[in-house]
């Protein structure tokens, strides 16, 4: 009996020792894997630098005086066109505002589809909502601009539509996530009084997500001011168009003036949106 018990104890001890040895060995292989991974990443980075930066650059063009004279051409600020900037600047702000409102309006049904707790037909409409969100966000605003210039022609309307469609994704995604996080209490209370689905949505959910909606719409307005300054590059109006004209005329001082105006506008937009968001939230 005693011998058998001792043999069992010994066997257990051996198993334990073996397990420790295995664990120690696996630490070593983990280290090897880590080094292999880091080495691979380093090799990829070096290869990209070689292929893209070293191989793809016209090095003969890059001389100190050459770069200097090209860069200083922009310093020659063209003040004569500064006063003409107010009109495209105003157009830029109006484009951003219209696009944000339109985008927010279109984001409402997308958020409704894409919030998994209220999506009308369950999984199917939820996936539909998520696909719409991704589609809106994954296509760059300039690409949307090209699409809408082709569809409705040159001008600010194409820019407004492009930014509106680009705005749907961000607004609907944040709103859908807020909807998924609502306190279920008011929803339950509205169901209990006999409210229908629409009324449960309007009273149980909307008041809870309203601060999120307003805050994100203001944020998106700020982003759209930035976007609308380049929509002109694809012929969709605003300051981008002014920039495009100065570039076409090789008027580097004028380009500097437009960039300066864009900078002022973006700073103003950021200040206004920060102030408005503080007031709402």
């Amino acid at each position: 009996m005693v011998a058998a018990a001792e043999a069992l104890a010994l066997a257990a001890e051996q198993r334990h020792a073996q397990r420790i040895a295995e664990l120690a060995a696996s630490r070593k292989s983990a280290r090897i894997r880590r080094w292999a991974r880091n080495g691979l990443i380093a090799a990829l980075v070096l290869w990209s630098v070689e292929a893209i930066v070293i191989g793809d650059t016209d090095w003969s063009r890059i001389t100190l005086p050459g770069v200097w004279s090209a860069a200083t051409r922009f310093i020659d600020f063209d003040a004569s066109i500064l006063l003409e900037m107010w009109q495209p600047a105003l157009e830029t702000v109006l484009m951003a505002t219209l696009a944000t409102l339109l985008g927010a309006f279109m984001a409402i049904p997308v958020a409704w589809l894409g919030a998994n707790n209220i999506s009308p037909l369950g999984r199917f409409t939820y996936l539909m909502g998520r696909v719409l969100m991704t589609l809106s966000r994954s296509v760059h605003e300039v690409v949307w601009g090209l699409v809408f210039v082709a569809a409705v022609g040159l001008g600010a309307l194409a820019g407004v539509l492009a930014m509106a469609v680009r705005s749907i994704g961000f607004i609907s995604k944040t709103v859908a996530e807020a909807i998924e996080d609502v306190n279920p209490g008011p929803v339950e209370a509205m169901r209990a009084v006999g409210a229908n689905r629409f009324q449960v949505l309007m009273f149980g959910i909307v008041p809870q997500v309203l601060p999120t909606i307003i805050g994100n719409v203001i944020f998106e307005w700020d982003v759209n001011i930035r976007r609308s300054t380049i929509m002109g590059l694809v012929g969709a109006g605003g300051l981008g168009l002014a920039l495009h004209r100065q570039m076409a005329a090789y008027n580097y001082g004028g380009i500097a003036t437009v960039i300066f105006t864009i900078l002022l506008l973006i700073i103003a937009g950021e200040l206004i949106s920060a102030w408005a968001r503080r007031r709402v939230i």
Partner: protein
Amino acid sequence: MSASTAPLLSVRDLKVSYTAGKQILKGISFDVGATEFVAIIGPSGAGKSTLIRCVNRLVEPTGGEVRFGGVDLLKLDEAEMRRQRRNIGMIFQEFNLIDRLSVMDNVLTGRLGYMGNWRSLFRLYSKDDIAKAVALLDRVGLIDHLDKRADALSGGQRQRVGIARALIQAPRLLLVDEPTSALDPKISREVMGMIRGIAREFQVPVLCNIHDVDLALEFCDRVIGLQDGLKKFDGPPAGVDKHALADIYSMEVL
């Protein structure tokens, strides 16, 4: 039994299982008469909250019968059930008010079941409903707080808004789910007293979950004891003695 003497609410062999296998209610039967104030007591997890939510089908039962005014609620479709819910007021543990709306607007949501989408979207309540809401808020002692936002009130005040919201439905039955758990002892007694007073005044029967046995015995006409999804006791408060409590709360006593 003829329709006139049938109890207002009659629950038969009610069963609920949430996820596969786990049974929350294992066949509960009881009646609630026309003006009774019935307390449901029992340990946490006994199924009190589930039971009360089966009556207005906020929780979907898996079997049994819930007859309300002669109608088997479990056989109704969504729209028919909504119409029945208009007759059943509910008061909640966490009040479940809409924080960003005013006290008045919160009470008026009790009328949504009678309104179309357009009128509710623009909150176009009828003159009659508005007058009723003001009178009820006066009755629960909140006449000076009509335009305050719901989240600006204290817990006891919030619960009184909840009571007014349930009453504006002109309910034929009140479901009350742990009305005092979020309140301190003094306010709890005030709220229970108010619910009992209003139930008598409006002649509405009450089915009330409450984990505080002393409050249950003080304010209710009848006590149902629940343990682990089964009914362990059903009788007047006078019958709730040590023995009965040991039976209902046996898991905690042992």
